[in-house]
């Protein structure tokens, strides 16, 4: 066999395709996002020279860290062909849980572990309903979105729950090698997820099940187990996000902030190229999506424009980005770089 392989039929990248090759390294679908980000930064730079100050860049990093973790998890759910609308409510619920536990004198490690368990339980509930009752993920997580939000209001009596913990203070204020803790968590979470999706058998199966569930099932992949795992993962990410929110604010709020955060996480994942039809999406894209939202928010603040405008801008951006991704342009770009 090896002898016949002296000249394997592989893709020859033409000399003129060097640019396309470079694009391949970034991920062709990320080029548009990168261009958008650069454009956005350039526009903001014309209005203020404070964008590129290290302190400000780190501020952006911290500001997007919680959203980033939720978006990366959401992206995986979307790649698998599902959707988790409840992830923001899960974050609220776990935030309230950790704050209440601390308030009742649980140790910080205990409080964190139990809050993570609450997130896993929330994910298990979503997964069980989707797998065993065969309910559509949108309906399932729309229901749990409401139920988890309600539960966090019930548990907190609708009031803010103050939470003090030395560990949380450290996370909120300190850095490792110049990188603030929340940003560090996002980078580690993103990296681990990226490696998992890109290099492991599990990652490949997640793409396959989103791309063509029948084909995946036909090869013997246990879709039920994968779905369960995916919603557990989303629940865990929701818990991490909720705990980080409490660490940042020193209190848990069972208000609509969690819901907003969850929906913005979906926005960022879609902005980053995840396709609701499943099978498409990746960590770098999701992080770029989050970064664009973060820079937009930050820029409006620096330019002293009312932050309400950012919500309008996000809506416009989402429609622009997704219509661009759907256009044949991207497909053709991809093909040109890959002709045999």
């Amino acid at each position, binding site marked *: 066999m090896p002898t016949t392989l002296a000249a394997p039929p592989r893709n020859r990248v033409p000399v003129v395709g060097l640019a396309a090759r470079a694009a391949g390294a970034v991920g062709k679908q990320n080029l548009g996002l990168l261009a958008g980000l650069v454009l956005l930064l350039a526009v903001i730079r014309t209005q203020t020279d404070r964008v590129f100050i290290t302190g400000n860049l780190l501020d952006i990093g911290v500001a997007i860290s919680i959203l980033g973790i939720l978006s990366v998890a959401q992206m995986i759910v979307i790649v698998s062909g599902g959707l988790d609308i409840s992830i923001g409510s899960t974050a609220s619920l776990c935030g309230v849980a950790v704050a209440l536990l601390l308030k009742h004198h649980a140790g910080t490690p205990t409080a964190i572990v139990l809050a993570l368990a609450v997130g896993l339980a929330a994910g298990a509930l979503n997964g069980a309903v989707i797998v065993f009752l065969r309910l559509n993920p949108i309906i399932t997580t729309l229901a749990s979105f409401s139920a988890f939000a309600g539960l966090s209001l019930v548990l907190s009596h609708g009031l803010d729950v103050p939470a003090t913990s030395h560990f949380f203070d450290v996370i909120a204020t300190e850095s490792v090698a110049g990188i603030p803790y929340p940003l560090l968590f996002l980078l580690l979470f993103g990296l681990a997820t990226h490696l998992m999706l890109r290099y492991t058998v599990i990652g490949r199966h997640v793409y*396959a099940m989103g791309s*063509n569930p029948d*084909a995946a099932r036909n090869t013997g992949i246990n879709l039920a187990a994968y779905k369960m795992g995916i919603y557990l993962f989303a629940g865990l990410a929701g818990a991490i996000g909720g705990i980080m929110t409490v660490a940042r604010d020193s209190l848990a709020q069972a208000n609509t902030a969690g819901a907003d955060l969850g929906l913005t996480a979906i926005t960022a994942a879609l902005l980053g190229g995840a396709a609701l039809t499943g099978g498409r999406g990746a960590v770098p894209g999701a992080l770029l999506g989050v970064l664009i939202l973060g820079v937009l928010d930050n820029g409006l603040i620096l330019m002293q424009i009312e932050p309400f405008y950012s919500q309008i801008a996000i809506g416009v951006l989402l429609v622009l980005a997704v219509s661009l991704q759907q256009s044949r342009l991207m497909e053709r770009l991809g093909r040109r770089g890959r002709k045999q």
Partner: protein
Amino acid sequence: MTDASLRTPDAAADSGGDGTPLLELVDVGKHFAGITAITGASLALYPGRVMGLVGNNGAGKSTLVRIVSGVQQPDEGHVAWQGEPVRLRNPRQARGLGIDTVYQELALADDLDATANIFLNREISRGWGPFRVTSSKRMRREAAALFEKFAIQVPASGTEVRQMSGGQRQGVAIARALLGGSKVLLLDEPTAALGVEESGHVEDLVLRLRDHGVAILLVSHSVDQLLKLCDDLCVLRRGRMVGVYSRRDLTGSDVVSLIVGADAS
């Protein structure tokens, strides 16, 4: 037309095989709530031979394919694998024996490349449990070797199968079955959705599979295609088997009149 004279393993005698078919259907039948989907079907598949399966809509072709692939169980007659009677309870069991069905829509994940598709859920990997890491290079090499062996013209990696032509996709789906060690391939109208040129590629591939000793059951509506590819032809009409004929004894008009029945013209 009487069915006895031309029936069955006539063809087997001069098959060039050693006499024992890989897979044999003996008087197989299947009924649904009073409807006879197929009855009295007997045919034998040999390594390196192509058996055509032809008949009008509702003749029972798909039912027969589903029986051979383990999707449905016959309620008359039996199936034999290498001379031994077997019950094919499900597709996985059939696949375990080496019987694989190529359904294009079922077989491929559009967002993965050819290598990822043919290795799906049998990835070459290192490590353990959730940390099993795919050995992409090895899989790519083996996929490329397989494509080369059967002259399947597809890029092994870097191109999503979504971007491939219908013929290329069919090639990937077939390669997936071959990688699994299939000895019998069931092709249910493999060129139905393809243009002339693409169909030609798939037909060439069927011939190469035959040359490599694969036993093939080919469902097709195209008489030309059947005459071009088949060694034997099994004709069904309204749920009954008309007979199995050697390709050499048939002209195109013979095939047509067998399909529609003598009384139809």
